[in-house]
């Protein structure tokens, strides 16, 4: 078959200084891959002063073939020898001239460990400090504009705010309720096993209600919102940034913070407590359902829950959710506005928004725990 022509080499040592390499056949990428190591092994072993390359038998030569010739030339130069290519067909000679790369680009020199490490620490520190600076100034700017909006409700873009509240709140009711219900069921089943040992199964209702109202309800809802809404805010604003829409807002005299961040923030601050109440309600329902299967009457359970919890538990939990909502929206929007360039930037922003929000929520929850402890709530 014509296409399967192979290439061959022949290596002769003519005298002390001259050696001859004869290459014949088809010098294409496929053939070169097997010849390349063989040829350079011979060169390394014999170290010719003058290498005569007889290419009269070469009937086809592509980029890889030319690459071989150029590499041989470079190798000979390195070994302080020379290369004479003989009888190469003119059309391949032309290719040689065309492809001669001249000075090869070299990868950047990696500085020594002792220079590299302090440099990188310095760079990372500068970047982190800049980020902290931008975050602090962002928080300040947003807070001032948020307060301004609260006192000048006419300046708020109500239509956008309601739309965002619907998307991140009303549309999240299902998932929040389902999650609350399942957590109620799981908590009831898990705690029932231990409580049964003491004959105190009725207190499962107390436990679930207190845990949900004070901790799990607000936390779970905040996590759902961080994953669902925080990432959406970051991706949406990030895409607007990449499409120059944020620049367009700026040059139209509409501050991006007032136009994009405040409606999202207000929507999140309003919907987080509402969703938490849904989460709590369905959690209690899940718990009651499990307890009914254990033989308790619903009215007994409701009385038990009313007796075990008070409004401080409920509002103590709900108070946290305002802060969680503020954090989720703030971090989501900030990550969106900080979106860089390139295809992966929006994805990175969304990921950063979720991770940072979750960390911020847990830290804030910890601070609340300490405050509540000292306040005796």
């Amino acid at each position, binding site marked *: 078959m014509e296409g399967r022509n192979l290439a061959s080499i022949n290596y002769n040592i003519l005298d002390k200084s001259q050696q001859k390499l004869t290459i014949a056949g088809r010098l294409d990428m496929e053939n070169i891959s097997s010849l390349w190591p063989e040829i350079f092994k011979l060169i390394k072993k014999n170290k010719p002063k003058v290498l005569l390359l007889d290419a009269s038998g070469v009937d086809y030569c592509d980029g890889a073939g030319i690459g071989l010739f150029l590499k041989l030339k470079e190798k000979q130069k390195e070994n302080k020898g020379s290369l004479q290519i003989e009888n190469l067909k003119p059309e391949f000679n032309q290719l040689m001239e065309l492809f001669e790369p001249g000075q090869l680009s070299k990868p950047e020199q990696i500085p020594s460990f002792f220079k590299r490490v302090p440099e990188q620490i310095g760079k990372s520190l500068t970047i982190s400090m800049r980020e902290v600076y931008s975050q602090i100034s962002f928080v300040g700017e947003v807070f001032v504009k948020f307060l301004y909006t609260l006192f000048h409700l006419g300046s708020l873009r109500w239509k956008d705010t309601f739309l965002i509240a619907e998307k991140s709140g009303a549309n999240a009711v299902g998932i929040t309720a389902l999650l609350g219900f399942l957590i109620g069921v799981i908590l009831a089943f898990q705690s029932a096993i231990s409580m049964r040992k003491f004959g105190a199964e009725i207190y499962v209702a107390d436990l679930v209600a207190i845990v949900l109202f004070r901790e799990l309800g607000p936390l779970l809802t905040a996590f759902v919102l961080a994953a669902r809404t925080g990432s959406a805010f970051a991706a949406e604003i990030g895409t607007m940034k990449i499409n120059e829409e944020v620049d367009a807002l*700026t*040059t139209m005299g509409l501050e991006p913070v007032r136009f994009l961040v405040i409606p999202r923030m207000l929507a999140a601050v309003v919907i987080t407590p509402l969703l938490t109440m849904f989460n709590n309600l369905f959690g209690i329902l899940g718990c009651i359902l499990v307890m009914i299967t254990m033989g308790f009457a619903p009215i007994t359970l409701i009385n038990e829950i009313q007796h075990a919890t008070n409004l401080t538990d409920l509002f103590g939990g709900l108070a946290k959710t305002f802060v969680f909502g503020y954090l989720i929206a703030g971090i989501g929007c900030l990550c969106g506005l900080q979106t860089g360039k390139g295809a992966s930037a929006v994805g990175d922003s969304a990921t950063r928004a979720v991770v940072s929000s979750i960390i911020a929520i847990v830290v804030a929850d910890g601070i609340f725990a300490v405050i509540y402890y000292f306040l005796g709530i």
Partner: protein
Amino acid sequence: MDDNAKSIIKVENITIAYDDFVVLKDINFEVKQGEIFVILGGSGCGKSTLLKSMISLIKPVTGKVLIDGKDIVTAQGNELRDILSGIGVMYQNSALFGSMNIIENICLVLEEFTNLPKDAMELIANMRLKVVGLEGAGYKMPSELSGGMKKRAAIARAMALDPKIIFLDEPGAGLDPITSAQLDELIRKLSRSLNITFVIVTHELDSIFAIADRVIMLDKETKSIIATGNPNELRDKSTNPWVKQFFNRQAVEK
């Protein structure tokens, strides 16, 4: 364009840098009222950066950009808002707000800067659309428009507040030659009939020869302006080899 027209933009000693990397050094030029002024140069020479510094998106390290006598570099708050309300910007990829239809895109800026009733704003938006040849497309979403239509819609949005100056960043980018020529025609029409000043960043020679009253040419190596003048004159009379090559569409060896 009136040769004795007053300068509406004055760029004085602008130096722009990203961290330690200087992009442009000591740039000075003036744009006259009603002029179609083109900033041109090879890729990566800082054309768009210069444009962004003129519309307050990038803060130059030194220098002033006087828009109708007010420095946009140092302006803040209401002063900046005032300056921005007098200019319109069309971005390279139109930057229409994807969640709003075209009328809403145009009305957005009217809502912010005026107390006009809704029907008046919609009428004005439709008037702008008529001027750019997009009548009837007002209730379409940006995603439903072709590239050329998006650019026209973006020009209509930029014209919302009757600005004296419109900045265009690569208006012909991504358009076929016919659509690009139609856009040039529109720019020329708006300039002549409404006396709007256009500052355009482009490197498309056809557009430059078709519409530009005056150009400045930026150079990547010297980071400065290497030519100023009418494009036809520069092509015929410039002694700078790089300018000659650029205007004569020759491959450049630098």
